[in-house]
């Protein structure tokens, strides 16, 4: 407890305390679930959700709606069956997008979403699976939708999901020598010093370790040899 008579005691030690504390806005109102000036007809798919519920029962967890878009949370283990059902029985033939989300919560920290389109029925559906930090395995849907291949590689690269049975489990953007998953919330925006060696600056030199290391407060390793400093001198 700071002493109120001592003016210096009131100075915050933690820079976090100096930060402007902004109160987050409220959750969406029930009207906002449907009403939106940019709402589309394609994203509302009650018929498909009913079909999914009859086919998969409790494996369809819950349905969220915002701006006239349906999001269906499904069980992680059944995602392959659900995608196959959507493709074969519900004409969802065009795979658009897949990606991860880091919610930074204790339980079910990550989410993977699937954005699939039916060109015949003119519908778009979004599926989501919840992924816990302790078990990062997600069944790969590349068998069903070949187009998911690179997107799954990217999600692995950025979040570290392990897509089971993926035909080509390599990183998408970062080199294999990189050890981190940059879109996780704990990864610093400036990067990790020294994590990514860059090519040497002279033909026979060492690899350049981090050109921006000074930004992180560390000295970069020299890529050339400096003449030895005389041990007797004062400097």
């Amino acid at each position: 407890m700071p002493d109120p008579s001592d003016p210096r005691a009131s100075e915050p030690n933690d820079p976090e305390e100096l930060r402007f504390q902004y109160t987050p806005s409220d959750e969406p109102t029930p009207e906002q679930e449907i009403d939106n000036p940019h709402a589309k007809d394609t994203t509302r798919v009650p018929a498909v959700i009913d079909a999914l519920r009859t086919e998969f029962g409790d494996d369809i967890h819950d349905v969220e709606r915002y701006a006239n878009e349906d999001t269906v949370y499904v069980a992680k283990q059944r995602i392959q069956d659900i995608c196959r059902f959507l493709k074969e029985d519900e004409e969802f033939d065009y795979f658009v997008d897949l990606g991860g989300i880091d919610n930074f919560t204790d339980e079910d920290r990550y989410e993977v979403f699937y954005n699939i389109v039916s060109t015949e029925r003119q519908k778009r559906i979004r599926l989501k699976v919840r992924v816990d930090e302790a078990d990062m395995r997600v069944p790969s849907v590349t068998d069903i939708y070949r187009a998911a291949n690179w997107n799954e590689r990217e999600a692995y690269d950025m979040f570290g999901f392990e897509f089971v049975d993926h035909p080509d489990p390599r990183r998408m953007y970062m080199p294999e020598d990189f050890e981190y998953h940059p879109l996780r919330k704990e990864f610093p925006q400036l990067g990790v010093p020294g994590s990514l060696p860059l090519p040497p600056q002279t033909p026979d030199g060492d690899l350049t370790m981090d050109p921006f290391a000074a930004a992180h407060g560390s000295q970069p390793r020299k890529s050339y040899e400096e003449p030895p400093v005389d041990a007797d001198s004062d400097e």
Partner: protein
Amino acid sequence: MAQAPDFPGLDFGDRFRFWPKHNEKIYERLEGKHAWLEEKQAARGDGDLPVTEKVEKDPLENEMILNIGPQHPATHGVLRCVVKLDGETVEKSVLDIGYLHRGIEKLAEHKTYQEFMPYTDRMDYLAPYSNNVAWCLAVEKLAGIEVPDRAQWIRMIMSELARISSHCLWLGVGMMDAGAVSGFIWTFQQREEIYAIMDEVAGARFTVSHSRIGGVANDFSPRAIEMIEDFTDSFLDEVDGWETLLNRNRIWVERNRDVGRITKEEALELGVTGPNLRGSGVPYDVRRFEPYLKYDEVDFTIPVREEGDCLARYFLRLDEMKQSVRIIKQCLDRMTEGPIRSDDAKEAYPSKEEVYYSMEGMIHDFMYTDVGTVPPKGAHSYHAVEGPKGELGFYLTSDGTGRPWRVRINAPSFTNLQAMEYIMEGSLVADTVVIIGSLDPVMGEADK
């Protein structure tokens, strides 16, 4: 030191000091991969997938591993294709991207919605205006912001100009890839005129950042409208000229026909998007599928071709440019007078007059820069536009503050490049250049 894979004609020694593991994995993948033709045959039941085993002998020394790029002008950016050749035929190919990866999805999480907009310019840098509009529409959908009519017309005109500009560049470099260098200059003359229009409208030629959340930055000047009218009047004649040169040109047709063919089923399976998808006979265009702005109010057709080869994509993009001109003319006719930005201080920046001459205006300007638009907590939505390259969508998640919690960019070039890995297999080396040109990837967008 990484052990380089050993197959005939390949001895890397310890050449890979730089990202050794990365290169090793690429070559491993190239060896272990099944060519798409083999996979298709196996799926049809004509025999099983061959067991991948090291070829011990290659007496004629036909096999060769070739790195095309990343520093190669024909790859249209920093695309690296590692291909396994059998004579002159590409047997297998592996693409390596990420040489332009800047992590803009991560950067977006640390910026207000408006602050992120200049970054979208640098995604598909051949048509920045489309990206601006895509981003603004996505944020407006997330926050439920209504945009005045005039701003929507302005956005439409400028997006279509961006499409023409992007297709002009595609045609110019496409001709150059096939050997006709002077065509590049002719299409760039037209691009130059569009640059001039962008300059007049937005004050910047290339990375325009003209659209704003809740509207656009400023209205058209009379001079700008005049310039756009002049351009739309003269542009179709230019296209006619290009068509006269190319449509029946034997070299052009033979370089493009039956090259990089994708059937309708394959296109859907590979998930290609934009003109490449429509060139294979799938009439999927976001302007029709999920009409945004005023696209449901203007009259235009979506060109579709059935052949699915490079020549079909050429005809299709030329048709698209003509349709864009048609859309722009209708927009100019139907544009109404009115405000160009939302009047709500929580939805858009106030006008400069308000900022300079009223206290409230200045406070609003400050607050919008500091906090900006605040979508509801936990809201998430996806909005896509039809960019020149295909479906460009942003999937945004809000945590109820002025900064997005997660931005997911669905980039059309990324999707198209994924398909290109398969399309290249079975073609000739000389045709890979034409195929890259005809799928029209932009690495700034594919690498995010």
